């Protein structure tokens, strides 16, 4: 309950941004932080709460993005409908990948590699079929109106990403308070023990990957409408997969607020490096790699773990600190 209040408070404060920020540049920054938090939270559902480390979340992101773009450009379907279709398609792709991997009990690095392979297959496919624009990419024609999911000002986009991100965070809050979440974390921590207690590990993991895919897909839809251009490398390339996992790892795996902290932290770092070194191509991946190594070595509980250490929650007399899923 306390977490829900905190969540409401945090999003209310973020919701002040369009009223107090007049600079488009700064508002764009807030939008990109929310967008990264959404990507990260999507990954966190499966990776942080479910313990299934995916290296291929671009598969869902790209599917969401291409769905809204292709429906619009090729079939003239309204992007608001495309948003729904994009979320659903991403979820179906997630269901397919989940079925193909969990059915055969793939875990750990095998699961990670197979998800990476799926994303790469989709990248190559989108690079060769004509309706995605193949290697040239796909350009969504500029036609600014709210009915067309293209806003003249950044404020409209802000509210879309705010709602999407809030929905993802509310879902994860629910996970932390539900039977589904308890079973998911049990599967993460010890699958055999969970099954011995009657937990349907396969179903639980399917639920997690589909929710995860849904929110990644929504991030993809948002990206397509915000930037109006996609190509196979943007949509299905490894950069999105890496960003998806880096955000919650930096912020705190399996915690509600971790992805938000991670998104803020990573954006601060990348803005700082841009100030210091300028816009070198590929520099962000280098920085991400360094950050990942530092986090894994020195702060395995991420920024949320750091926050918890600085402000320990008032624990009952005999209790010890427990962070699993509760930061």
């Amino acid at each position, binding site marked *: 309950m306390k977490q829900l209040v905190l969540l409401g408070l945090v999003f209310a404060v973020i919701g002040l941004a369009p009223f107090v920020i007049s600079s488009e540049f700064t508002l764009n920054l807030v939008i990109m932080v929310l967008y990264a938090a959404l990507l990260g939270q999507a990954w966190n559902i499966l990776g942080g709460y479910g313990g299934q480390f995916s290296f291929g979340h671009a598969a869902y992101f790209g599917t969401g993005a291409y769905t809204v773009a292709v429906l619009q450009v090729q079939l003239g379907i309204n992007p608001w409908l495309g948003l729904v279709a994009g979320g659903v398609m991403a979820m179906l792709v997630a269901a397919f990948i989940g079925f193909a991997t969990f059915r055969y009990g793939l875990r750990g690095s095998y699961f990670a590699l197979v998800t990476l392979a799926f994303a790469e297959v989709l990248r190559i496919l989108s690079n060769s079929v004509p309706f995605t624009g193949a290697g040239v990419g796909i350009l969504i024609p500029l036609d600014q109106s709210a009915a067309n999911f293209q806003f003249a000002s950044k404020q409209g986009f802000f509210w879309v990403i705010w709602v999407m991100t809030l929905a993802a965070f509310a879902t994860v809050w629910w996970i932390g308070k539900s039977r589904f979440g308890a079973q998911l*974390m049990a599967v993460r921590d010890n699958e*055999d023990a969970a099954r*011995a207690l009657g937990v349907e590990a396969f179903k639980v993991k399917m639920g997690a990957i589909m929710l995860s895919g849904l929110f990644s897909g929504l991030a993809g839809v948002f990206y397509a409408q915000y930037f109006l251009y996609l190509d196979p490398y943007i949509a299905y390339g490894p950069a999105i997969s890496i960003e998806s996992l880096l955000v919650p790892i930096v912020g705190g795996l399996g915690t509600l607020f971790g992805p938000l902290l991670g998104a803020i932290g990573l954006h601060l770092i990348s803005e700082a490096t841009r100030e210091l070194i300028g816009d070198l191509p590929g520099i962000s991946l280098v920085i991400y790699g360094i950050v990942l190594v530092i986090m894994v070595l020195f702060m395995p509980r991420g920024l949320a773990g750091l926050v918890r250490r600085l402000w320990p929650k008032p624990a009952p007399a005999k209790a010890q600190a427990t962070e*699993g899923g509760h930061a």
Partner: protein
Amino acid sequence: MLEVRGLVKSFGGVKASNNVSLSVPEGRITSLIGPNGAGKTTLFALITGFHKPDAGSVHFLGEDITGLPPEKIAQRGMVRTFQIVQPFAGQTVRENIAVGAHLHVQSRADALEKAEDVAGKVGLGDRLDMDAASLTVAGRKRLEVARALATDPKLILFDEVLAGLNPSEIRDVIPVIRAVREEGVTILLIEHVMQAVMSLSEHTWVLNQGALIAEGTPADVVGHPLVVEAYLGKGMAERIAKREAHHA
């Protein structure tokens, strides 16, 4: 309530389970003993769906459950504990037990409350908010029992819940196991601690090299020549008999 017929399981060349048949009666505590590597844990794994038998069948409450996955078997009311304890590390004792409680309880609050209840029964009531990973060995064994109990099972298979405990801890846990039975739960246990087998169980099966070699009351079974041989080596039963004849 549990009928095991002709279970066979080989790992490579090792016959870990060799044509094992047994029948567990409802409402009792029965036990399974045998030397290390006899195939006791393997038999539990076969019964609860963690391994698929090469041959044979398992019936529970009159229904064929051979080949069902472990979660389905747990849902029908048979759960096992693990000899090598398997806590959900990083989660509290309360959260660990609640996973079991969730088998029949939808609401999180109710499951957590039930976990508290069960923790009290097994003597973990004062460690509810501790990380399961920081429990002592004895604490973890109790946690195994508690999680299984929280699923409201009809039959529990305990795999060496007393191993690694000191004599005073064993004395503490034995009444816990008895109390479980008093609540109407049938128990089959694997145990090396003979004191516990003797005091808890009415009927015992002896397994050696994958096969059942004897059964009966614990007192009968320990004097059985095949059992003595299984534990102490070939020819031992004969030598003991000779020595006893000599002394007489």
